[in-house]
């Protein structure tokens, strides 16, 4: 049994008992417990099931490296899957359920995979389910998907809020152990602004558990003293529960602060994402203990020696009455001594080394513990719980010398420095033979913008595993401004040596190797890596993906090095030759909520409103997003569907009067002596010859020749043009203009200004349009004074107005720009004056239908970045005389100049229906993939309320030469729609309605 000890526990408060639920069972723990510690105190060693074989799994570690003890935490809108019990602080009322089992944790049907494990080696899924192909989609994938997946996705929206904050400093220290505290002090002494981050709730790291005193002062007292010293300083900020999880370019660091994980629902943000910019980074992230690879090393009760020590010392939790220690280094002896000090039994220490003569082994012997050198574990006995170990010689093949009864096994395969943050932004690691570990290569650090080292590493993270040497190295620089601490990268001192023990026993046969777990969560064993190597995998990156080693939520923190070592051994190459996989942020998983921060719901992205937005809202407009704008799609009346509203708006505009909020239309002023010359380069047509007061339609292409934007250009005076762009294109086109002016033709005298938001623009459209303007009064808008494609400045109803007589609907139409501040008032004035003329607002969909009825193209419908103006029969808008314009050379390329291009035509469906959006025009035969050949596609398709039938435009191979021919469009249902090819102008071909 694992249980709570009667005394001890440096982190727990026995006066603050807390009740919590695990799989519906009520349990009790104390303030200061982690969920894992509290579960162990309640004899709940079994915490989950593995991913592939559904093997019973208990907790292995005591920190973020934990692969097994993952739980669903909370419920409903606060359910979070895959939370590590080892880093979850206990709180009163906590609810957790275990994962990856059915029907229950104790009895799991999926465990049959375990008995079939022999038939499910590395790459099993790739190898087995590849044939027959259709079976994958309909049989294998659904079954595998149901069986796979750790945890449950929440079904409700997250009830919590998250926030993001910025911070700036000279030195950022990540890790609040002794090395981190000393580094922070040294930097602070030198007068630098310091931020110290610690992922747990308390400072001090491992030292309070592992050491008795620092210079004769009890460790906890020493830590409290340096903490209060640092907290008292103005230039130091300490943040606990904050994991610095990623190092990025030029001193940019992201950190996740778990503000209210342990106090859910108290009104504070759950997490706070820190975006920190620092001049230098010091990582003091410590080291993570490695497991040993022996048969049955995943049976619940087998734990890291350091974790056992943590639970005993920090939480007064016993993993069992009798714990056998297996190790290849001295640090595990501390666990034996800690257990002994707590009154627990250590039947034996199995040390794989031939001799063990250090101070700790001697202390263990002096305490009466049986130390067996040159020994290892042949096999752990037990199923859902350790019952004993079989002992063998490390040098042999696993012949059992004796069996020892025990409830727990504490193992130590050495220590892996946490080099992640050093490596995130390009720092290189090197193999240290003495430590059998990768350590930061101080000569190849990540660099800052000026090429100086950006990250330095101190303490165990640098491979400096002895406290005495950490202290000596860091105290030396404290207070000395001449030595800037961040230049210091500590190095291993050689005082700690860890011999390589990658398999136990070293000559283990396949029966044992296939029970030695490397990656606990993804069920990758020594035998799987060896199989991958036999099958020809040589690159560590490929082996990782093939076996899934290190691809679980712990990202290989626990035992990637063991896996690399086994691979290197199989390949008969040294470990540094095989190399390591790339360390990428985040160091620990970060919840999406923290990354999103406040950007959710209404403020997910900025909303651009026209001056008339409020009027639209009050009038019940149904909006659609256009870029960041929200534009009315239609203005449905009571009882109307959107489609009915659109049809009413179209008919009313064609018969009487429609008003459109066109304020989103891009408006760019281009001014200067060279403005005309510049526009001649930008547009395919000629703009420099445009007379003052006239309007001209223009097309813009990119350098490849593809149509990019269109709009009407008005010349306001000799040197001033106003270029209209599409609603979504204004910012892009303005940037495009600036790019050419600043980077290519910087000697041309042209100034541009994007004045889109400075004007409200209203389209007054329909047979009564002129009557409305005359009712408003103030300027002459007659056919003679203001003919089609002309503009004039004046006043209308007292509003200063610029009136463009242009039409995107085929109706008599004026677009009127007024200052944005007067837009709403002018819009209301138009409605008031237009009431007796039948004025109604119309939305973007009615605009689309009317422009399609007239065969006008729409950027984004008729174009998709692969269409040139010539494809749309817009040759009339392309100057033949100009020597150059942007896109001219691109359009001359043979593929674009080919007569076989798909070209724009109109379509009449034979049955009068509307062709489905996105439909292709099918051709005879099939292509190499067995798919039907195509010869074109629809680009715009609507039901025309004016013509009371479906209308469509589309691109068709040789289209203009095929008038009258009947072609077939496919539908998603697999049917076809027949349509007759025609010209693109469906309504008022001669333009009689707009020229009145």
């Amino acid at each position, binding site marked *: 049994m694992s249980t709570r000890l009667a005394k001890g526990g440096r982190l727990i408060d026995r006066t603050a008992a807390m009740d919590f639920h695990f799989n519906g069972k009520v349990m009790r723990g104390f303030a200061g417990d982690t969920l894992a510690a509290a579960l162990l105190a309640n004899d709940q060693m079994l915490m989950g099931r593995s991913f592939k074989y559904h093997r019973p799994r208990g907790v292995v570690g005591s920190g973020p490296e934990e692969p097994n003890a993952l739980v669903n935490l909370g419920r409903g809108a606060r359910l979070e899957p895959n939370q590590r019990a080892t880093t979850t602080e206990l709180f009163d009322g906590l609810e957790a359920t275990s994962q990856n089992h059915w029907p229950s944790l104790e009895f799991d049907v999926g465990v049959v995979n375990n008995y079939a494990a022999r038939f499910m080696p590395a790459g099993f899924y790739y190898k087995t389910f590849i044939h027959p192909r259709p079976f994958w989609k309909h049989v294998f994938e659904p079954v595998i998907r149901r069986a796979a997946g750790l945890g449950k996705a929440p079904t409700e929206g997250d009830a919590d809020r998250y926030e993001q904050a910025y911070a700036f400093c000279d030195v950022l220290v990540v890790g609040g152990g002794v090395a981190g505290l000393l580094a922070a002090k040294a930097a602070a002494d030198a007068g630098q602004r310091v931020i110290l981050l610690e992922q747990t709730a308390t400072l001090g790291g491992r030292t309070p558990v592992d050491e008795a005193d620092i210079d004769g002062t009890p460790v906890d007292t020493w830590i409290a003293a340096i903490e209060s010293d640092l907290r008292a300083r103005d230039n130091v900020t300490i943040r606990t529960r904050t994991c610095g999880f990623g190092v*990025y*370019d*030029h001193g*940019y660091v992201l950190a996740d602060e778990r503000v209210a994980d342990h106090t859910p629902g108290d009104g504070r943000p759950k997490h706070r994402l820190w975006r920190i*910019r620092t001049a230098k980074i010091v990582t003091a992230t410590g080291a993570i203990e490695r497991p040993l690879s022996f048969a049955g090393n995943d049976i619940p009760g087998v734990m890291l020696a350091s974790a056992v020590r943590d639970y005993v010392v920090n939480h007064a939790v016993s993993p069992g009455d009798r714990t056998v220690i297996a190790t290849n280094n001295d640090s595990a002896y501390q666990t034996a001594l800690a257990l002994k000090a707590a009154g627990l039994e250590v039947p034996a220490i199995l040390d794989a080394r031939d001799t063990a003569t250090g101070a700790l082994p001697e202390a263990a012997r002096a305490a009466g513990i049986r130390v067996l050198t040159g020994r290892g574990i042949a096999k752990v006995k037990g199923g859902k719980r350790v019952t004993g170990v079989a002992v063998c010689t490390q040098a042999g093949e696993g012949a059992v010398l004796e069996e020892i009864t025990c409830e727990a096994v504490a193992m130590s395969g050495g220590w892996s420095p946490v080099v992640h943050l050093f490596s995130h*932004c*390009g720092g290189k690691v090197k193999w240290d033979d003495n430590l059998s570990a990768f350590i930061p290569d101080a000569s190849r650090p*990540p*660099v*800052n*913008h*000026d*090429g100086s080292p950006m990250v330095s590493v101190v303490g165990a993270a640098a491979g400096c595993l002895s406290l005495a040497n950490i202290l000596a190295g860091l105290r030396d620089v404290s207070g000395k401004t001449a030595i800037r601490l961040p230049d210091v990268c500590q190095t291993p001192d050689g005082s700690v040596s860890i011999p390589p023990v990658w398999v136990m026993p070293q000559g283990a046969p396949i029966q044992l190797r296939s029970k030695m777990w490397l990656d606990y969560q993804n069920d990758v064993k020594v035998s799987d890596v060896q199989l991958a190597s036999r099958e020809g995998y040589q690159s560590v990156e490929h082996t990782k993906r093939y076996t899934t080693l290190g691809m679980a939520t712990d990202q290989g923190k626990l035992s990637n090095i063991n896996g690399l070592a086994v691979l290197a051994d199989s390949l008969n190459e040294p470990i540094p030759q095989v190399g390591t996989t790339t360390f990428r942020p985040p160091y620990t998983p970060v919840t999406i909520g923290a990354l999103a921060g406040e950007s959710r719901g209404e403020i997910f992205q900025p909303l651009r409103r026209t001056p008339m937005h409020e009027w639209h809202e009050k009038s019940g407009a149904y909006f659609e997003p256009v870029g960041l704008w929200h534009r009315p799609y239609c203005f449905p009346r009571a009882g109307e569907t959107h489609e009915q509203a659109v049809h009413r708006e179209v008919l009313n505009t064609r018969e009487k009067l429609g008003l459109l909020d066109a304020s989103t239309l891009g408006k760019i002023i281009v001014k200067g002596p060279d403005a005309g010359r510049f526009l001649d380069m930008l547009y395919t047509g000629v703009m420099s010859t445009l007379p003052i007061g006239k309007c001209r339609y223009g097309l813009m292409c990119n*350098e*490849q020749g593809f149509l990019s934007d269109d709009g009407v250009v008005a010349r306001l005076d000799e040197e001033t043009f106003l270029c209209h762009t599409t609603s979504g294109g204004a910012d892009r086109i303005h*940037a495009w203009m*600036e*790019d050419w002016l*600043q*980077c*290519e033709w*910087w000697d041309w005298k042209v100034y541009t200004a994007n004045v889109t938001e400075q004007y409200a623009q209203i389209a007054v459209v329909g047979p009564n349009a002129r009557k409305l303007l005359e009712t408003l009064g103030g300027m002459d808008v007659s056919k003679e004074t203001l003919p089609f494609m002309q503009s004039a400045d004046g006043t209308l109803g007292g509003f200063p107005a610029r009136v463009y007589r242009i039409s995107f609907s085929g109706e008599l139409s004026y677009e009127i720009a007024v200052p944005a501040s007067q837009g709403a008032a002018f819009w209301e004035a138009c409605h008031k004056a237009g009431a007796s003329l039948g004025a109604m607002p119309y939305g973007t969909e009615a605009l689309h239908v009317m422009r399609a009825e007239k065969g006008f193209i729409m950027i984004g419908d008729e174009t998709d970045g692969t269409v040139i103006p010539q494809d749309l029969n817009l040759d009339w808008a392309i100057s033949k005389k100009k*020597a*150059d314009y942007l896109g*001219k*050379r*691109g359009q*001359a*390329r043979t593929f674009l100049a080919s007569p076989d291009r798909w070209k724009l035509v109109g379509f009449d469906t034979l049955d009068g229906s509307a062709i489905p959006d996105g439909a292709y025009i099918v051709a005879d035969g099939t292509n190499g993939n067995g798919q039907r050949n195509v010869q074109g596609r629809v680009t715009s398709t609507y039901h025309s309320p004016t013509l009371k039938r479906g209308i469509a435009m589309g691109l068709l191979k040789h289209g203009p030469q095929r008038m009258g021919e009947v072609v077939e469009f496919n539908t998603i249902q697999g049917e076809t729609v027949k349509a007759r090819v025609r010209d693109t102008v469906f309504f008022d071909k001669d333009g009689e309605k707009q020229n009145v």
Partner: protein
Amino acid sequence: MLILTCPYCGIKADETELSPGYEAHLKRFGPDASPEEFEAYMFARKNPKGVHFERWRHAYGCGKWFLAARCTATLEVFGTYPAQVGEPPADIIDKIKARRPDWKGYK
């Protein structure tokens, strides 16, 4: 996230203030260009691992385009300079040569 100093307004701009414009010092080829010239202008990019010259716009600042010389492998920045030049300034060339003796030049 890179920091580049805008040579116009002098601000050390965070990458979120900037918009990228890809390789710098390209020569535009227009209507008379041969297919090879046009292809090189349109598509052939160096994309080096190492010293690289790039166009950036201080889009959420002064709005100016500028050029930056930096190392794509280590992210070291050798300098930024206005876009209205035909080739990189001599002092930046000198700095790159000092920092990267093996560098073959920007062309």
